[in-house]
């Protein structure tokens, strides 16, 4: 059996974009906004590519679920070095649980020894898909990874947790969700972009996978967060300390 890694990626509003909320409160303006691969997913893909380059995997497959436009993000991933891409078409965004069900179908088909995902997508900031997938697959999960070491049939994963760093050992196959410090993704060079156009990109329908999307949550409204009052400037350290004293913010 070919040693495969499946990497899940999501098309999201680029992290540099200052988002705008629709006046009717129904959501965030997406028309004409720059879209990119979710930064955490890029790190997941980079890690998969490095594992392959070390000779520990034979094929890296990127998968996404979303509208036809997602192909451009999949092409970026192929240009980074993924071997092939799978696009599951869905015009409506899928909730993490549905996304996990879809990814599980792809896993059953591809039989990877490792599934890498970003720890969260920077649009909805849910941070759920990897853990849900691991639960449905009944396999280990290692979230927030900042280091992954593979051995025969298992992996040691260093996780960024609130207290510091935690190391887990998981049997493979497993789901690992990645944090920012795992690696720095490579830049894509022009020849790679040209080559990526010839790499296989398969489109699948939800029906062909036998998944019916379910929407549990309804969006009631989207609003801007409360704005902070604009503050004042002070001229020097002494004025700052005086102001803090006056506000009662210094220890007595």
């Amino acid at each position, binding site marked *: 059996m070919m040693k495969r890694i499946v990497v899940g990626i999501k098309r999201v509003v680029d992290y540099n974009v200052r988002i705008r909320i629709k006046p009717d409160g129904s959501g965030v303006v997406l028309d004409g906004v720059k879209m990119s691969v979710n930064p955490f997913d890029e790190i997941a893909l980079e890690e998969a590519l490095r594992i392959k380059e070390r000779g520990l995997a034979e094929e890296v497959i990127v998968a996404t679920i979303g509208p036809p436009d997602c192909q451009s993000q999949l092409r970026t991933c192929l240009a980074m070095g993924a071997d092939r891409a799978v696009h599951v078409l869905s015009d409506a965004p899928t909730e*993490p649980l549905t996304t996990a069900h879809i990814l599980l179908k792809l896993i059953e088909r591809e039989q990877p020894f490792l599934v890498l995902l970003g720890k969260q997508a920077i649009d909805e*900031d849910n941070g*759920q898909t990897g853990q849900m997938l691991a639960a449905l697959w009944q396999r280990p999960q290692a979230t927030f990874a900042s280091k992954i070491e593979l051995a025969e049939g298992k992996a040691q994963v260093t996780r960024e947790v609130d207290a510091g760093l935690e190391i887990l050992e998981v049997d493979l196959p497993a789901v690992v969700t990645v944090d920012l410090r795992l690696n720095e993704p490579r830049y894509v060079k022009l020849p790679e972009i040209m080559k990526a156009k010839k790499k296989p990109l398969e489109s699948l329908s939800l029906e062909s996978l036998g998944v019916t999307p379910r929407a549990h949550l309804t969006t009631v409204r*989207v609003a801007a967060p409360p704005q902070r009052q604009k*503050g004042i400037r002070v001229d020097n350290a002494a004025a700052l300390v005086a102001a803090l004293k006056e506000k009662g*913010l*210094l220890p007595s």
Partner: protein
Amino acid sequence: MSASILIIAEHDGAALGIGTAKCVACAATVPQAEITIVVCASDASAVARQAAALQGVSRVLTVEHPIHAHPLAAAIAPQIAALAGPYTHVLGPSSTFGKDVMPRIAALLDTAQVSDIMAVEGPHRFRRPIYAGNAIVTVAVPEDTKVVGTVRTASFHAAAAGGTAPIEKVDAPVEPPQHTRFVSTSAATSDRPDLQTAARVISGGRALGSAEAFQMLYQLADKLGAAVGASRAAVDAGYAPNELQVGQTGKIIAPDLYVAVGISGAIQHLTGIKDARTIVAINKDPEAPIFEVADLGLVGDLFEIVPQIEQLL
């Protein structure tokens, strides 16, 4: 209909985490809530006592199993899923512990999760931040569906002590899987206040330029009784350890005083400090975005200003 809420305790085997008391506070804002805390541990006695002492808690359940000596999501989730039947809500803190385990529970219960609950608008209606806190969405869960959620701890004050809930031991409902094993943890031990609960926090950014320069912040922090935080750039550069990172992908904090030193104020950083009562910015660039949210701004070179402040205290 009254709500019956199960909260998953976060703890280190000895002490109950502050996030659990915040979950209790969040749960208490659900009308007519009856609150149960469940403690999964190898020996739950000490933690269960602390949980039982939280005001508003009706009952504490303990599930003891050697595998629960460490908080493994794969081991905890099936226990909770097996116990969750009678409850209308299952909540955990939006800490790395809760973020790890709660979605696994939600999937086993075949339901969605509401992440980072910042306000309860009704038993099935919640507000949560999206896009790094640049938008707030109100979501509704169907009335007949169990709510699984994580609680954005910076949005709630911890429930006070003073309760005397009964503690009930339950047999581990399932035999946890062995495919995930704890190896080690490198928790930095420090005498300084904890970043997540400190009343005052001083954070340094890329401008510090070295781990040595960060010592200057530690000195100032000690004088102020403050915790030290850092921007992602400072952590990535190795000036500060990862557990000090504040922001979208680090810690979300709500101190009385937050001092940002040499931090530009990227949206991913600001999302971690939105709930700070007073924000102070020290930055040599008068146009730095951090000044847009700062209550007190001082334009200048941090290497001059920080020692001056220390002198003045």
